[in-house]
């Protein structure tokens, strides 16, 4: 799969359950990565499942935090506090996956 082209709009959703340390960390990491790599072409929607438990079913949320790339398609899921930037970039298709094996 080829990395996303520079003009595409990123529609991201971050699922969390309350203001847990992992959730706070994930949000901070996500903001930093997006500002560096997707400046001006991303939206982040944070969904707190404690407030909206019914929403977990639609995106098949299991692990938390989960970042869902809704656009560009196909849908991608990235779980964890997003502290491994390289992996987040791979997950978002901003880095080619081939390098993963050695990483």
């Amino acid at each position: 799969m080829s990395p996303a082209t520079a003009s595409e709009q990123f529609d991201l959703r971050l699922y969390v359950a309350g203001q847990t340390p992992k959730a706070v960390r994930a949000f901070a990491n996500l903001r930093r990565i997006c500002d560096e790599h997707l400046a001006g072409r991303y939206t982040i929607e944070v969904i707190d499942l404690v407030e909206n438990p019914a929403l977990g079913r639609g995106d098949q949320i299991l692990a938390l935090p989960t970042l869902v790339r809704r656009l560009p398609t196909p849908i991608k899921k990235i779980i964890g506090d997003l502290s491994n930037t390289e992996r987040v970039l791979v997950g978002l298709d901003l880095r080619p996956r081939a390098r993963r094996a050695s990483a």
Partner: protein
Amino acid sequence: MAKKLLDHNGIDKAPTGIPGLDDITNGGLPAGRPTLVSGGPGSGKTLLGISFLVEGASRYGEPGVLFTFEENAQELAADVRSLGYDLDKLCQEKKLLVDYVHVDRSEIEETGEYDLEGLFVRLDHAVRQIGARRVVLDTIETLFGGLRDTGVLRAELRRLFRWLRDRKLTAVVTAERGEQQFTRQGLEEYITDAVIALDHRVHEQISTRRIRVVKYRGSTHGTNEYPFLIGRDGITVLPVTSLLLEHDAPNERVSSGLAELDDMLGGRGYYRASTILMSGTAGTGKTTLSAHFVDAACARGEKCMYFLFEESPQQMIRNMKSAGIDLKRWVDKGLLTFHADRPNRHGLETHLLEMHHAVELADPDVVVVDPITNLMAVGTQTDVRSMLTRVIDFLKTRGVTCLFTSLTTSSQTLEHTEAMISSLMDTWVLVAFDTIKTQRSRHLYVLKSRGMPHSDEVRPFRITSNGFTLLPTKDRKSPATAGARRKK
């Protein structure tokens, strides 16, 4: 009283509603706790879980949540519809909630610390939505294929089972059987309340399913492996009834259908609700003897059920007519019903379960199985014995007099094959051939008959167009023995 304490004051039980399973668990699964159900692929784990939910929702007023990690909700509903389970209807009535949990490692990138709070939130939400009391997680081990961090996974599963206990949810957690342990991921380490193992094995091309309660903390339970079936009505575990030696022993006697044979049995025939074995080599007249018994029972106005594993009913009726016994009139009157089946069409337990159903439905006074040996061919010796014990128990408890014919092959001694079932039989009549010069002559003797004086004679007999005719013994010096011959 002691029994009552153990069974009822021990722990609360949630009945599964699965026939037989509640018997071997003395009432059901531990209420408010998780039970682990492990088994190989196709062993019936999912169906057990769904039955537990459907029965809970429809019969015990306990709504349930199904979290399925493998099939999707539509496929699942279609799969169980053939068993009469309408999941959609129960879902609409808010008695059941099905959530399909999809995990695919290839779609997920792991980038740091996480937990499974999402699963907890979904489960909690589902449970609250319908006020669930029962939960099934099928098969949660799938998560191990979807997530890489097994350390997190194990910690979260431990938390999940504690979570279920804290909320007093009765849960069934299914798992694949492992090589060394009960489950691949060692879930038995986390769920220690109750463990049930399912097994599906094939012996001589006939498949048998088995269930065993491996562990049940705080409760007595049957420890054997029990056969179970997946049939039209879902799962049935044999025994359908518990195994107890508690049936009545009536003093009433019933005629064998032959005055001379009654003579040999203390002058009054068999006991009602006893078991009778007719054994002998091929063509000795076992079926004719059975037909006489049935004929006499029907003449008394009793209902008879005849299980045929060799002949068709039409063939049986024709053959017996040639021996002067008119069975058709009893069929026409509704007193005699035939159930004919090929022995190798199903496994042994299916046959026995069908017999069970038929007997429960028609409530006969007399049951004949002709020949029982054909059924024995479809199971191993231990299987046959344990199942036969249960069926006999069931019949005796209902006050049914049962007659079994048994075919001895010529290579065996006459009393050989029956050794495994003879102890279950109250009366054993043997029929045999003697070849003297150019003529084969038949004879009959009573090998045993519990609770009555019986003759030690070996009586020759003939089968004519008037049926069985017992002839007097040649040795006139010892006329009737202990069994008083009827005084004329």
